[in-house]
């Protein structure tokens, strides 16, 4: 694996952001609106309920973490779509770059931009609503890593779907985080879900992240079990998504889909 070639893919995304400030604004605008909305709701809830519950960390933390996951997933897909829209696959894949290096470039650029946006929004939440990640302690890092890898895995699956079904499949991709959010207990424990839905929740790594973070906030208990199960599960997702992507890419090479990849009628 030649990391310099992956860097070229990252550099392309950075050039795109430098060339067009609306791309930079789009990274922050929605999560900023979310922070305002949930931040003020949190303030209101604090006035209604008894003291002792850290609503700010509970809700704003969840919003920020879920946005981090969504941004990583969408970041990979967006970077891939840049090549779809520019009809750049022929130019790229007729060079020595391998599909692994290309994918790594997408992952790195998404992680870089997603982490930058996460840091800025963390500061915004801190300044406006007094939110602090210190409430979670250093234990949040491995859980953040689980969300990062889950975002990468779903990003890879999304890219595979677009490759296999064509660019019009984008309507399936964008709502994925919104569709998943009720089942992973972003704002509430998964025990409130019906039993049959809890089975689905337990198959999704973010469920373990949010359960564990609530456990830290309310009971000051670090759940090593949640970390382990979530960690193993997310690695299974990463392995499976990579395998699906490689299989899809090879299918495209066999069927001659890649060099015509701007057509809407790809099946």
């Amino acid at each position, binding site marked *: 694996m*030649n990391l310099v070639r992956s860097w070229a893919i990252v550099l392309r995304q950075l050039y795109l952001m430098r060339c067009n400030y609306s791309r930079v604004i789009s990274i922050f605008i929605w999560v900023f609106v979310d922070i305002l909305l949930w931040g003020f709701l949190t303030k209101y809830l604090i006035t209604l309920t008894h003291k002792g519950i850290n609503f700010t960390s509970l809700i704003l933390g969840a919003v920020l973490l879920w946005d981090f996951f969504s941004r990583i997933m969408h970041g990979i897909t967006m970077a891939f779509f840049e090549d779809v829209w520019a*009809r750049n696959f022929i130019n790229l894949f*007729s060079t020595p770059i391998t599909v692994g290096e290309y994918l790594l470039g997408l992952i790195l650029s998404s992680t870089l931009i997603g982490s930058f946006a996460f840091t800025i929004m963390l500061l915004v939440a801190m300044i406006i609503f007094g939110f602090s990640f210190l409430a979670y302690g250093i234990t949040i890092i491995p859980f953040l890593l689980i969300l990062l890898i889950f975002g990468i895995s779903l990003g890879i699956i999304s890219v595979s779907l677009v490759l296999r079904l064509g660019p019009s499949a984008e309507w399936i991709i964008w709502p994925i985080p919104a569709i998943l959010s009720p089942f992973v207990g972003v704002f509430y424990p998964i025990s409130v879900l019906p039993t049959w839905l809890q089975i689905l929740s337990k198959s999704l790594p973010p469920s373990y992240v949010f359960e564990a973070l609530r456990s830290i906030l309310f009971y000051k208990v670090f759940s090593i079990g949640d970390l382990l199960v979530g960690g193993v599960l997310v690695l299974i997702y990463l392995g499976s998504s990579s395998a699906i992507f490689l299989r899809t890419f090879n299918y495209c090479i066999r069927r001659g889909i890649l060099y015509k990849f701007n057509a809407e009628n790809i099946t």
Partner: protein
Amino acid sequence: MLKEILSVKDISKRFNDILALDGISFIVSSDEIVGLLGPNGAGKSTTINILLGLLKPDRGEFWVDSLSMHNDREEVLQRMNFFAHYAPLPGNLTVFQNLYIFSIVYGIRNKLEVIDTLLRQFDLEKYRNTKTGLLSSGEQTRLGLAKAMLNSPKLLLLDEPTASLDPSRAKEIRGVIKSFVRENRCGVLWTSHNMYEVEDVCDRVIFLFRGRILIEGNPKDLLYRWEKSNLEELFISLVNEPIYFKGEL
């Protein structure tokens, strides 16, 4: 002494019921420009895309500079480059950014120097910081050709390289490509529907028809042999009466 740069052996490709390529074999040598001709659907683009590694053949193999695409993909693609009018560089990046990114991908050492030379050679210096999408189609063609020469390839694949150029610029670009071939002793596989251009630049031509090579040779020899006054005439009779040429198969 000419060195074999591209060696294609018995390549076939089928798309469902359509046999796009039916066991074609040919070579391209260093310092040689080979025209790949044929009517629409003859298999030219399929051949080019197989050579670029964007399409997997059902059967057969090819070697670039004695390296097999099957076993040494990265090394093979490092020795090749291509330009096609239907594959423009990303329009939302500047001319320089596009060339810089591809120079990283190809592992060029003295990137800035190489890019400056190519910008000068293709008269693109004043567009260095212009977004590619804002260039005229002729300027985009010149940029695409500059990209194709970034890594000093040993094999250059050109799919209708002058399709969007005015006659004067097309002649100039043909001159640049020819001198690039002589200086770098590279081989070129050139597809075009402009038979005048093919006669002008190609040392040898290969006529594809329904996925098979119908005739192959030096343009002048072919015209003499089939008693035609120019390649366009030969092309038309080949498409209209392919059976007449079947004896060549």
